[in-house]
Every structure is written in structure tokens, then in C-alpha cells.
């Protein structure tokens, strides 16, 4: 599967040449808002934007100052995705606030947010919502070792060359983790990220010689606030509702200048990032799931304790325009009542639709405990959309007539009661038919 992905991405890398031929589409819609400082500035990003158009997106390029631009109207999204390439604009569109952007994301919208050394307060606050903390205004990422070397090297080494970490694979194509891959050129601002945050994936970080310092200052302890791997250059965020957001400390990373720079992987990198954010790849979904009694193959209203059941789930992953079967060995099923009673790994099995879905199957013996259980497949993997499937299922105790009858341990009791009954009858018979002495008995005084 990984191979497939690689091939797909590799083929996409050349898609620029096939404009209009390939009609890749996002699973969540194709309306893209692109905010640039001025409409003319869009030319700077023409390669990137053309690649979006070429992938079938319906791009609306708007100036950041255009006050008619809104992300949502009456609570309904007007765009499916937004790309902000105007990091320095103090106001965006119809005075869009941080809250508007968060609400857009809560509603399932995807964002690509870029930054620069002169990042506006709005962009800074917005990023902070997602746990991305940009460095102070006026700082830049500097690397005196790995940087783009112009012919006359008199620059301040702010156009750094960086490589993605290995962990970024589901977001980026595999070629980036090869040892001799081309670097990604980056010019902009660094950010701090929380490596333990499972929702935030760092896809481009500094190398050992990379640091963040105010532009034009000397590099010393007083000025360097962030350096090395802890220095984030590009990070992506996936929310609980599977909306995706990318934070790039550099808008220039998307520019034609760097995309067409020889020896740069920027083109591939921006394509990968945009494909991931705009839900064109690594989108995981559950197409169906079912559970039923192993014996009858039917799903009853509720199960009984210790029932043997079958649980199945179908998973698909989206890339290269279509859904493909998602293959993995770590899909787990849980039966939870406050705590997990059962946690079992589901095995891949023959799918009803092998072209698009993979079916995972588990033979489960329900616990010997009644209650309301939650059958759950909670599959969260870095870079993939979250799949969290829950079913609330009642597990009932046995019916009064389902308990075992005639326990072998109880035979002495059965026999004793039988003997008792027979003995009683025999005694009665003996009493009734035994010869009595011929004495006249006085009738018992009795009245009811």
C-alpha cells in the first residue's frame, strides 16, 4: 500500500504538466478561498495555485482587504477550504476574527495558514489556538549551514534548507524520508510546537544548526530563542472532526520563486501539504460496520452474556481520486463498560468490495457480565483521519429458562426429594390400608 501511495504521489508530482487532464478532488468539497495581499500578488504563487486548479479545485482568489469575503454566512460555510497567503494583513476579508476561523474549522473547513517575519497579530493568535506559537515579530529562521546559496553569498542565511522528519510520512510523500532527497527551502518565522500533542504533526523542522533570532542581530544566547529540532517550520493540525489545518512559517515556501528553484523539493512539498490539508489523501473512513451472533448470523436486539459474536468493520482510505482498501494490522475492537472488558485486534478478511474497502473481522466472545456495553473501534493514526465507531449494545443476563437444568452436582438432591415423595406416599398408603383396631373414634371437633 505504501508503494501505491508513493507511486500515486510521484505521479501527482508531474500533474503540473497535465493541467486540466487530472481531475483530483477533495472528499470534502472543492471551493477554495485564497487570500492574498492584493489580487496581483497571486502571480507570485501561480504555480501553486495552478496546481490546485489542475487538481480540480474551484479557486477564488481574493484580496485580503476585500471586505465582502466571509468564511461562513448564516452558519453555513461558503468555502470548503481557505488558503491564507497574506500573513501580514492586519485584517482579513470582512474583518474575520480568530473566532470566525475556529468556527470555520469546527464546521469542517480546512485551512492553510502562512506566516512571515511580519506576521499579523491575527495570524499569531489564530495559530496559538492550535498550539502553534510563532516567534516574536521581526525574528527569522537562520541557518548558517544549510541554506540556499546564491552565487554571491552575502545574504543573512534566512532562506534555509530543511528536511522533513520521518514522522511526517502520512502527510508527505515517502520520497522525503529518503536520505538524499532535495531540501525544502524556507524563508520566514519559526514556531514552537508541542511534540506530545497528538493532533499536531510537525512536518518540517529545523536542523541542528537552525535557530530563530531577530533579523540582523548577532547570534548569541540573548537573541536565540528557539533552535534545532524544537524549532518548527511547518506543522499540520487535524481536529477532532477531521478538519485539517497547516501552519507554514513561510508564505514564500509556496512562491513560484522557490517552487521553480533548482534542487528544491518545494513543489513536491507544497503539493503534498495541500493534498493532505484539502482532504485529497490519507482520508480514512469507515464505510460500514456490523456485529451479529456467530451462531445465527443475525443481529439481535440485545446480546446475552458470553455470546459468541462476530464484529466486522470496513475501512477505506482515499488517495489518487478514489477510495482504496485500507490495510493495516492494528485495527482494534473494544467492548467497554466504564473499562474495556475486551480489547481484540481485528484481522483482515475477504471484503465484499475488495476494490475500495478492506474488511476487518473479529470473533468475539462477549464477557460474562451484563450491562450496557459500548462496542468501539477507535482508530487514530498520525496523519490519517480519525475513525471512531461506537455502538451501544445491551448485554442481557440469561433468560429464566436458559439456565442449565439438571446439574449433575445436584443429583443427590433430586434423588433425596424423589425418595421423600415416594416414602411419603408409601407411608400414606400404609396408614390408610393398615388394619385398625375396631374402636369407635369420636369425630374431630372441627368447623370452618
Amino acid at each position, binding site marked *: 500500500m505504501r508503494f501505491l501511495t508513493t507511486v500515486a504521489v510521484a505521479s501527482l508530482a508531474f500533474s503540473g504538466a497535465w493541467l486540466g487532464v487530472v481531475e483530483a478532488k477533495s472528499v470534502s468539497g472543492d471551493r477554495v478561498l485564497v487570500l492574498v495581499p492584493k489580487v496581483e500578488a497571486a502571480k507570485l504563487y501561480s504555480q501553486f495555485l495552478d496546481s490546485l486548479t489542475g487538481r480540480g479545485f474551484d479557486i477564488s482568489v481574493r484580496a485580503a482587504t476585500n471586505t465582502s469575503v466571509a468564511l461562513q454566512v448564516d452558519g453555513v460555510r461558503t468555502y470548503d477550504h481557505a488558503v491564507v497567503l497574506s500573513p501580514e494583513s492586519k485584517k482579513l476579508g470582512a474583518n474575520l476574527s480568530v473566532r470566525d476561523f475556529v468556527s470555520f474549522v469546527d464546521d469542517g473547513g480546512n485551512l492553510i495558514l502562512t506566516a512571515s517575519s511580519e506576521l499579523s497579530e491575527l495570524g499569531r493568535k489564530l495559530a496559538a489556538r492550535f498550539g502553534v506559537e510563532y516567534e516574536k515579530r521581526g525574528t527569522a529562521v537562520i541557518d548558517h549551514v544549510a541554506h540556499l546559496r546564491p552565487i554571491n553569498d552575502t545574504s543573512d542565511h534566512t532562506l534555509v534548507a530543511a528536511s522533513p522528519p520521518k514522522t511526517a510520512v502520512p502527510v508527505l510523500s515517502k520520497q522525503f524520508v529518503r536520505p538524499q532527497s532535495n531540501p525544502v527551502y524556507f524563508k520566514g518565522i519559526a514556531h514552537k510546537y508541542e511534540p506530545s500533542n497528538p493532533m499536531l504533526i510537525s512536518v518540517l523542522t529545523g536542523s541542528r544548526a537552525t535557530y530563530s533570532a531577530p533579523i540582523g542581530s548577532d547570534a548569541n544566547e540573548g537573541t536565540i530563542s528557539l533552535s534545532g529540532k524544537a524549532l518548527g517550520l511547518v506543522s499540520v493540525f487535524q*481536529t477532532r472532526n477531521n478538519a485539517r489545518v497547516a501552519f507554514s512559517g513561510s508564505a514564500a515556501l509556496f512562491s513560484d520563486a522557490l517552487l521553480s528553484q533548482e534542487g528544491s523539493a518545494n513543489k513536491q512539498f507544497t503539493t503534498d501539504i495541500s493534498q493532505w490539508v484539502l482532504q485529497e489523501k490519507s482520508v480514512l473512513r469507515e464505510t460500514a460496520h456490523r456485529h451479529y451472533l456467530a451462531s445465527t448470523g443475525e443481529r439481535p436486539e*440485545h446480546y446475552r452474556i458470553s455470546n459468541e459474536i462476530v464484529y466486522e468493520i470496513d475501512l477505506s482510505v482515499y488517495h489518487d481520486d478514489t477510495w482504496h482498501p485500507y490495510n493495516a494490522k492494528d485495527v482494534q475492537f473494544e467492548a467497554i*463498560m466504564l473499562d474495556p472488558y475486551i480489547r481484540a485486534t481485528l484481522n483482515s478478511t475477504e471484503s465484499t468490495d475488495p476494490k475500495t474497502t478492506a474488511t476487518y473481522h473479529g470473533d468475539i466472545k462477549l464477557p460474562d457480565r*451484563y450491562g*450496557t456495553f459500548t462496542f468501539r473501534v477507535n482508530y487514530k493514526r498520525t496523519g490519517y483521519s480519525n475513525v471512531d465507531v461506537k455502538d451501544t449494545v445491551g448485554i*442481557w*443476563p440469561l433468560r429464566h429458562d436458559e439456565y442449565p437444568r439438571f446439574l449433575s452436582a445436584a443429583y443427590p438432591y433430586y434423588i433425596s426429594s424423589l425418595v421423600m415423595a415416594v416414602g411419603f406416599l408409601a407411608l400414606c398408603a400404609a396408614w390408610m390400608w393398615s388394619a385398625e383396631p375396631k374402636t369407635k373414634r369420636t369425630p374431630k371437633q372441627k368447623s*370452618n
Partner: protein
Amino acid sequence: MVNKVLGLTAADQASLLRIAILGLISLVAIGSRLYSVIRFESVIHEFDPWFNYRTTRYLVDHGFDKFWNWFDETAWYPLGRVVGGTLYPGIMVTSATIYNALHLINIPVDIRNVCVFLAPAFSALTAIATYHLGKEVKNATAGLLAAAFIGVAPGYISRSVAGSYDNEGIAIFLLVFTFFLWLRSVRLGSALYGALTAISYFYMVSAWGGYVFIINLIPLHVFALLAMGRFSNRLYVAYSTFYVIGTLASMQIPFVGFQPTFTSEHMAALGTFGLIQLVAFASFARTLVPENHFRTLLRGAVVSLFVVGLSGLVLLTMSGVIAPWTGRFYSLWDTGYAKIHIPIIASVSEHQPTAWPNFFFDLNMLIWLLPAGIYFSFSELSDNHVFLILYSIFAAYFASVMVRLILTLTPIVCVLAGVAMAHVFETYLNLRDVPAAAQLKAKATPDVVAATDAVKSLVDAVSDDTAIEDTDSASGHKKDGKRGKGAKKNAAKAVEPTSADGAATSSTQPSVPTSKELSPALKRFYALFPKFVVMTCFMFLLCMFQWHCSWITSTAYSSPSVVLSSRGPDGSHLIIDDFREAYYWLRKNTKPEAKVLSWWDYGYQLAGMADRTTLVDNNTWNNTHIATVGKIMASDEDTAYELARHHDVDYVLVVFGAMLGYSGDDINKFLWMVRIAQGVYPDDVKEEEFYNSQGQYAISDDASPAMKNSLMHKLSYYRFADVMGGQGFDRVRKQKLPTSVTLDNFEEAYTTENWMVRIYKVKDLDNLGRSHHAASKF
């Protein structure tokens, strides 16, 4: 016969009257229980009845088989409740049977109405059963009086008004009826009646946990009789039949199951059963082995066997073979036990020890007739009377330990008061010892005279009962006067009043001069006057009794508690319907599988009215689960949020009385939640942290930090100060309102008209993975 009216003999007249009177008593019993329907509506009351109502509906809708195997997933989420195996199905089956029978004859009655009116209907049956019990122990007079008493005694009404659809509603009838059958079977030595007792006992077992009272009292009765040397074949037949059939039958109820074989509560019955076999064998042996001192030997054997049996029981209990007494029973012996060990039992107000005024409140004059009744029982002391004495002593003890057990005391109080009152009537309404009157009635048999006299007096009592608006004593006074006058017409020579119950009467009667100089009229006056005075007093008391009962019923016991009423400033009647408003909101506005967290008091109502899943309810079977809910309420917002999420809670419901001054709200119950939570989570919840620095239970700004941060406090007072303005005041606690109550992890979903019920939604996890505090700040 001479005195034929409508072609009926005196005896027939008496029985006709008895039937008529019993009918009237039944009507009064039913009628006085209908206040709640008239004042409010035909609605199920309180808490437990909602569960019974819900299960009855399930039974009617799904049939008995499904009901029997019903596992309720919506209660005690996520543990669930095996409903079929953890309830006493008697009341549901009774209602369903009535419902189906009515539908069979094409009376399309609603199941709710069957449930609402079941308890009043059964109270009429209770009156009839009590009549038979009274008749069994004394005579029809005592029976009728007892029936009249139990028909209106508030101690019983409190649990059987229309809408109070609870186990006790039918169980008291079964209790009385079982005892009646038991006494009869002991008196007759009849296996038939013994079996009937067992069947009635089975019905009782199926209806109420209080059957344990029967299965301990009857063996105690037997044991007492044995210890008194009163073993007889009658007793043997009655008890053996009852115990064997009754125990086997009781084990068919899933909730009881094998308990009769291994729990302490049932051991006395088993021991007595063994003992009576030994005694029977001994007395059989006695016929074979003539011995003069057998009786003494027997007694010694009985006592030593008892000691051996008891010590064996103790040993088995300590070694764990026999289940020890449950906490509820311990708290019957040691009233402080529950408060220390089981706060969940102590937290229920009906489990508190009874305050003395309660006895008068619930039983009025009957409570002082009780000792008189016991005295008369002692003076006769037949087997039946031994039972009455034992019953009264034990029930009186239990009633003083636990408020709600006044219920079991009420029947015996009514019976013994009936006995005592019958003695009074027979003594003071007996005009035969009045000159000439005796001659006039010479032909009537003495019994009938006594009976008809008593009946007359009862007619008075009953007529007073039904017409309480009449000036209380006047009617009794008038009728007594009439009788006096009637007797006067037949004035003749005086005869020394020789009362059969001279001992009882002479002390109260003024000494009658025996001088021959007194004119006959004066002698008659001396004979009649004391009777007249005493009867006037008693009539007055009876009227007061009825008045008291009606008043208590209408003011104290007829509130459904789901609907409250109050008086407006102009005296108008206001209905406060916040509970149903809130439940209905939940029913209509939340998704059907939503889980609602509330304190356990409201669990049954939530399930019944809102039809939503609850975490805890009034069944209180799982202390840990309740303590968890207590902990959620007592914790700070973040801990509570985490726990609530862990339990899949969607909504939190709190009852808040500060707006109206409703003192039964959750803040007042909060300390109990804290205590119960502390019992299970002593490290996380500590009661002393909820008192402020002055050691007070404060809610305003000077409350302790734990109190102010607790979820309960926040949910109760959130935004309350805003609506009350700056001068806000908690009308229950009489304290100022806390000013800044913030809430981040929960959002207000609904608050009822009078702010009595507040519902909050548990927020979903933040989409961006932030804490709700952080999210709300921005």
C-alpha cells in the same frame, strides 16, 4: 322471632347492618384518599411509584414473559438493572390483571388510572380484612371499629392515597389478611386455613419486602405459645402447613430466591419449624411414656434447644454460611448504625427514628387506646391475644426506630383500639343493666343486643365520619340523648347496676347510692348519667379523630410531590409544575439515548417521565455508583467533567429551590452526597472541606473553596444572581447569593419557570483539543 323488620330476624338485621357499615367504611376509606386527585390530578406520586408505574406499563405492553426477563439498560447506566429479578412483582401483576380484566369486559380504562386508584381500592379491602381480624380476636363490634379506624388512619393513608402507587398500597391489605388467616388457622387447627395463610403470604412476598415481618412474627408467635406450654395439634398443623407451603412459594419470587434457606432474616422461621417438630414428637412421646414432670422437662428442652439453635445460628452466621443481617436490619436494632456505616440509608428521611409527635399525628387517639387494647388482650390471653400482644410490641418498637414503619404499626393499633373501644361500647351502651330496659329486651339474645348496640353506635360514628362539617360532638351527643330519652320512657324500678365489666367501669362511675329512698326515676338517672357522660366523651373523641384524619390527609398526605402547590399573596391556589416541565423538556428535546445524571432521588421520575437513561435511581442497589455521582457533584468542574465524560453523561439535572424557597433541593441534600461519596472515595471528597471557616454550611461568597468550586454549587447558582439582581437572596438558606459563578465545561440547557429544575449539557470535547477553560477565555 318477634322483632322482625322487613321480614328479617335480629341476627339477619345485624349482619345486614354489618355489611352496610362495612360498605360505608370502604367508601369512606376510598373517598378520603381521593383528595390528591381532586386537588391536583390523576397523576402518579413521588418517586418509587414512578418505577412501579413504568414497570406496570412494560408488563401491560410486553406481557409477563418479557417482564419476567426484563433487563433495563436505561437504568444504572452502564451497569443496567435486572428488573425482573430485583423487584417485587405483586403490585404490577395486580394492576395488569385488573387492567386486562377490565379490557376483557370492554372497559377501556387507562393503565395510569388503574395504578392511581389501586391503593385506595385496596384500602377498602384492608378495612374488610381488618374487620375480620377484629372479629377473629374479639367480636364483630371490635371488627367494625377496627375497620373504621384503619379506613381513615393517617398512618396508613400516608402510603395509600390515590396516585401513591407503591408496594405498601397492597401490602398492608395482605399483611392484615395473612394475619387474619393465620389466627383463624391457629384457632381452628385447619390445614386448609394454614394453606390459605401460606398463599396469602406468597402474595405478600410477591408484593413487598416487608414480608420479612410476617415470617418473623408468626414464628415468634409460635415460639411464644410453645414457651407458654401451649403446644397443641392445632398449632402444629397450622404452622407446619404455613411454613412449608409459604416458604416454597416465596422462593418462586426471583428477588427472594434461595434467601429463605440462608439469610438470617429467615432463620427464626426455620428454627421454629424444627422446634415445633421436636415438640410435637415430644408430646407424642408423652402419650406413650406417662410422666408427671413431662411438662417441666419439655419446657426445659424447649429453652435449651432455643439456646443451642441460637448459638448455632450465631456460629453459622459468623462463619459466613448464613448471610448476616443486611444493613437496613441492623439499623433497626442500632439506630445510630446507619448514620455511621451506611449514609445512603441514613440519608433517606423515612428511615429516620420517629419523633414522638409523629405517633399522634399519624394515629391520633388510637395511640392511647393501644395500651388499653393490650390490657384487654392480657386479660383474656388466648392464643390469638398472644399474637396481638407480640405484634403490637414489635411493631411499636420498629415504628419508633424508623418513621416509615408506623405503617406496619397502624393495623395492630387499629385492631387493639377497636378491641378497647368495643369494650367501652359494650359497657356503656349496654342498657340492659338499666332498669326495665333489660326486661324490654329480654327476648333478644345478649350477643345480638351487644352487637346491635355497637352497630348503632358505629352508625353514629360512621355518619359522623362522612359528615365532618357537622359540628363535631353535636350529632353524637344528640343521638345519645335520644337513646337516653327512649330509655326514660320505660322507666321502672331501679336495679343495682351490675356490669359484666364492673372492674373497668366502677372506677369511672360515680358511686351509686343504694338507698331505698331514691325514687325510681333518680335511680335510672344515676344508672344512665355516667354512661351518657362517658359516651359523649368518646363520641367527641371519635369525631375529633375523624376530623383529624381528614385534615391530615388533605393537608399532609395528598401532595403528589411531582406537582407542588402554593398560595399566592392573595390566597389564590398556585400550581408549581417545574418537575414535569423539566422532564418533558428532556423527553422532547434530547436524543432518545441521552444519559441524564442527577442525584438518585430523581432517577425513577426521570426514567418514568423523561424516558431517558439515568445513572442512579431510587433502587440504590449500588452504593459505589451513587458515590460516584456524589463525587461528580462534589468535585471541581474539571474532575467532574472527566468523570461525567467517562460515564457518557449528556445532561446533568439539579433541583434548585432558592428561587421559590423549596427546601427539598439538591443543595440541602448536598451534604449527604458528600458523605456518601466520602464513604467510597475518602481521599477525594472530605465533608469538613465543605464547611466554611466558621464551620457553617454556607453557600454565599464566604463559602469554603471546595463548596464554591463544587459542581453542585456551580450548577445551582450559575447566573442566578443575575436574575435576582444585586439584592439576591437564597430563600431556602437565607443567605446572600454567591456573586461570581463561572461555568466552562457545562452549558445551561434548560431552566424551568420557577428555576426549580436546571438542566445542563455536558460539553463535547473541544474540537481543537483545548480545555474548556482555555476555550472560554478566548
